[in-house]
């Protein structure tokens, strides 16, 4: 049976390389193109802008990568961002810190709800989190009384506009969280168990792994990261707008994860790839806009890239047998 697989090895090898490194290669190619053909590309101001724009998506995508690693998906992240955004102005009167902590707790609770539905009740992740995708935004609008609230707290606004060592604070935050989640996956018991459970649930539970606890924790982390993204987005927007914040972020996050080489079938989490995936999607949008192509063109290019990424993943499932 093993010999049979030998013939298509060469093409399978190319595909595997593309799957694992394609996203980095695409970034290099696109960057080279922009360096030559795009005006004002290699300026600090432009890089800064692009990175700030990608930061909230990336933060959400980090949590999404973990959830997808367990063979799940979290559709509720955009709505959780809105909930966090709606909670902020309600408690800013008590100070920035309590308001942020409460927003994060709300994100964690949302994650716990998803986790309960998935790990304890046993509902499919796509359905379980769909409930909160729909209901969460409604809840956020209830919190905010359907209103957009302008933020006047300087500390919070500083998070959106402040800089540290020449780079925006938001970018530092996203980088720090990326590093943290990378360490979590690579070096902690939790991270290793998460990957194992995504790879083979049955084997993991027969090996005595705490499957429910790991799944629960994963969704909580995703919820908290979505809340962080909601806070960041609010700070940048200088207003809490629960009807707009986080719209369609679940799809951008899934895209970043998949393009970054994490298979939807679970069992593998690529955090660096996810960072690259988010950056690549942002670069594509920016490049096309700079060349006066409409946003819709960018969307179509992104769609093509998603299909390509999923196709490359598929070949992995086939080649693994």
């Amino acid at each position, binding site marked *: *049976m093993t010999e*049979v697989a030998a013939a298509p090895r060469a093409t399978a090898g190319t595909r595997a390389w593309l799957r694992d490194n394609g996203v980095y290669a695409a970034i290099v190619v696109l960057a080279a193109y922009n360096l030559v053909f795009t005006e004002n590309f290699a300026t600090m101001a432009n890089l800064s802008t692009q990175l700030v724009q990608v930061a909230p998506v990336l933060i959400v995508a980090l949590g999404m990568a973990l959830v997808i690693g367990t063979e799940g998906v979290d559709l509720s992240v955009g709505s959780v961002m809105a909930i966090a955004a709606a909670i902020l102005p309600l408690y800013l009167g008590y100070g920035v810190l309590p308001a942020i902590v409460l927003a994060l707790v709300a994100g964690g609770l949302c994650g716990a709800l998803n986790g309960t539905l998935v790990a304890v009740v046993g509902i499919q992740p796509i359905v379980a989190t769909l409930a909160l995708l729909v209901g969460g935004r409604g809840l956020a609008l209830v919190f905010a009384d359907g209103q957009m609230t302008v933020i006047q707290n300087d500390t919070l606004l500083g998070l959106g506009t402040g800089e540290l060592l020449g780079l925006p604070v938001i970018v530092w935050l996203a980088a720090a969280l990326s590093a943290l989640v990378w360490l979590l996956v690579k*070096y*902690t*018991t*939790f991270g*290793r*168990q998460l*990957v*194992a459970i995504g*790879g*083979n649930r*049955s*084997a*993991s*539970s*027969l*090996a*005595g*792994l*705490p499957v429910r606890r790991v799944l629960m924790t994963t969704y909580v982390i995703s919820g908290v990261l979505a809340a962080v993204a909601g806070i960041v987005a609010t700070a940048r927007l200088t207003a809490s707008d629960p009807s707009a914040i986080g719209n369609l972020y679940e799809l951008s996050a899934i895209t970043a994860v998949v393009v970054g080489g994490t298979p939807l079938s679970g*069992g*593998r989490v690529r955090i660096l790839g996810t960072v690259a995936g988010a950056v690549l999607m942002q670069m594509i949008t920016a490049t096309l806009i700079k060349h006066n192509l409409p946003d819709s063109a960018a969307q179509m290019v992104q769609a093509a890239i998603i299909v390509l990424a999923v196709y490359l993943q598929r070949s992995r499932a086939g080649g*693994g047998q």
Partner: protein
Amino acid sequence: MDAVLAATAIGKRFPGVVALSDVDLTLRAGEVHALVGENGAGKSTLIKVLTGVYTPDDGTLDYLGRRVRFTRPMDAQAAGISTVYQEVNLVPLQSVASNVFLGREPRNRFGLLDFRAMNAQASQLLDSYGIRVDVTRPLRTLGMGVQQMVAVARAAATQARVVVLDEPTSSLEPREVDTLFAIIERLRADGVAVLYVSHRLDELYRICDRVTVLRDGRLVHSGAMADLPRLKLVAMMLGRDLEEVQREGATKFEGEHAAGQAPVLEASGLSAKHRLDGVDVTVRPGEIVGLGGLLGAGRSETVMAIAGALPLDSGEVSVGGKRLRTGSVAAAMRAGVVMLPEDRKADGILPDLSVRENIALAALPRLSAAGLVSRRRQDSIVDTFMKRLRIKAASPDQRVGELSGGNQQKVLLARLLCMQPKVLLLDEPTRGIDVGAKAEVQGLVDELAKDGLGVVLISSEFEEVVEGSDAIVVLREGKVVTRLEGDDVNEAALLAALAEDSRDD
């Protein structure tokens, strides 16, 4: 005699496996024909050939005197060959009546479904078989047994000439079995040929007229059921030569008993609906206890129950005299009970992860401090077991999916041994691995037992159980038939226990 369906010299190959080779099967009108064989005998493949799921590579099918070639299940069904699978393949959300008439619903003069006629006819049909149900209820609200019978009645109602029943009684209560047999009698009287697949010898002798025995994809025997003694049937299924076994029966087996020692594992009264019925297993340190039984006897279920992987209705498991919480793998592991699962691919390995991660998987919490995995401790334990079990991998970083079956099995054993177990439950430890690796695994199990581990061994290979075990607990239909000890651990005694007629009890 009029053959309804005759399969001649059937051969079927899959990549790397010959599933069937030169198999003949003739089904006559008005007979119930038993098809028996152990795992890998080729029963399922043969059924799939007869029902059009597979097209045979060699051989011919003659149906009602004509040469046929089924390329899809639909062809066979349309011709009148009906199959009732182990898991009922009907539409659970629709009513009983709709299921009975699925695909051939009565219509009224507007071409719309005539529900009234459908319900009346379905009700009448089921009544005539002694199945009393409200035919308007969704099928899934009924018990598995009734669902099974609806499926059989449906097959009978489609004017089938051949009905294939695959393990029809595995989820039935004794009373339901009687009803099912009454339906089968009706089919027989109507001249239908019934192919009956089951491992329950009592049922075969009760209902079947003729029997065909397969082993390793080949035809072993075909003839009248009544002419075949039970012992001979079991011997054929297991591929043993009865005369030889009886001659060797006197041979003394070197049983190494840890007599006098307190048992390390005591499982008693293990019960789970339709699967286990009060199973007791006791293992002393250093003892290898084999589980004997035909397919479906409850061997895997027994070790799964002990390992906490099968929820129990009742029963106790004690390790070293301490009772543990059943139904929890983690609790069993903490107590020192670990299990090697039967299906290495589905329940064992993580093919995309490395050898290192696969070995360390269960022991991760023990190798971690403050939630961080200690790379040093992990590497040292992985290195120890890779050497001890002689795991052949390019490096600990190699993907387990790339290893040979034997080495994958050793990786799984290493995973279990990392937990420093007291009791090792091995479900088919040498299935699907090459001869060399097999000997190594067997030697290793012996060695572990000598070191004082209690071992429970399941193997579909007769010799492996008999030669490897100090005692054999023989199971049938989820119950313990007998426990063979000492000199009684031999092939003849095991065969006799397997063939024993439970109605004599």
